[in-house]
């Protein structure tokens, strides 16, 4: 997982509460740690832009989708559903399923904040809980100063939005060979998210393989061909995850160690 470089060193003067004059330095530190994230986002968002273009989104629409969603898998799901002319409820359910991990991350992040953190801070932080921003925020020593996360957001959100925008504009001007190559960037990113926990946890490893197998069956089995890809993804996710949760409940102590 890309943690965006070294975690900031703890400052004994600022631990626990954060005097206003320290917010600026935390913000700058966040920008620095956010730089590699922004670069990665730019490349991945570019491939998302191609998917958006195929779904009939304009560059502006795709950029706004990226600015307001900040979610690779979720946005990809929206674009593929839009391409299939899916209903709005289907899009809402699929967004919920594809982004369900952010629910967990937000739960975890709420424990990282000082108890007195104000509502506006909580609402702003909620805007960009992603795998990477969550990762560096959790890696921050002690309680999280929201300004550190804002710094990372300030650089990575434009990278994400601009990448999507250019993906739509330049995507179709690119040779087919290049588009074909770029279109797997997103799946590469998904692999980067699922493989590290699969290596450490044999249940997750088995689930990845079972998911691959069942997803393959569902897409090739003629009886299921009439069902939309979105519904298949929701059904398989709920079926496999619920089965695993009942058969192999997670030990809360272990769970923390596997947080992306």
């Amino acid at each position, binding site marked *: 997982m890309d943690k965006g470089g070294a975690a900031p060193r703890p400052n004994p003067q600022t631990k626990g509460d954060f005097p206003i004059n320290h917010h600026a330095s935390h913000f700058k530190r966040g920008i620095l740690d956010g730089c590699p994230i922004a670069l990665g986002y730019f*490349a991945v968002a570019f491939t998302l832009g191609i998917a958006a273009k195929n779904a009939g989104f304009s560059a502006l629409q795709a950029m706004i989708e990226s600015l307001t969603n900040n979610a690779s898998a979720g946005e990809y799901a929206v674009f593929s559903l839009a391409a299939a002319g899916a209903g709005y409820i289907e899009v809402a359910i699929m967004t919920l399923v594809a*982004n369900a991990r952010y629910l967990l991350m937000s739960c975890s992040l709420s424990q990282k904040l000082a108890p007195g953190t104000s509502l506006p801070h909580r609402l702003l932080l909620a805007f960009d809980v992603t795998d990477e921003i969550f990762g560096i925020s959790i890696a921050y020593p002690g309680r999280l100063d929201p300004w550190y996360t804002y710094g990372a957001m300030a650089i990575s959100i434009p990278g994400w939005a601009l990448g999507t925008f250019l993906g739509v504009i330049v995507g179709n001007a690119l040779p087919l060979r290049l588009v074909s190559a770029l279109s797997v960037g997103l799946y590469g*990113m998904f692999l980067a998210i699922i493989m590290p926990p699969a290596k450490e946890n044999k249940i997750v490893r088995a689930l990845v393989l079972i998911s691959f197998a069942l997803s393959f069956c569902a897409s090739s089995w003629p009886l299921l061909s009439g069902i939309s890809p979105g519904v298949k993804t929701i059904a398989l996710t709920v079926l496999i995850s619920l089965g695993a949760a009942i058969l192999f409940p997670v030990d809360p102590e272990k769970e923390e160690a596997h947080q992306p």
Partner: protein
Amino acid sequence: MKNIWLYIFVSAGVSYLIRSTPLVLIRREIQNKTLRSFLYYVPYVTLSVMTFPAIIQATQSPIAGFLALATGAYLAWKGRSLFLVAVACCLVVFVAELFLI
């Protein structure tokens, strides 16, 4: 064709509610073990379901997609960064399709 702005509105609203609700409401950890476990497994299962077989259907040649899957899985297994894994998958497909197409 449905209204794209409505798709954006719906997905943005759901995405934000997912992230803001726990941060605003939940001040304590979820205690229900099955629910915790379910939420823990969901991201990995849903990303896996979306990755395969889609990765071999996205490329011009399914073999190139397979090679990207193998390379990406290997590098991610080795703990390489998100950026490197994504770029490596793209490169593998590009080079493979020079020979395959």
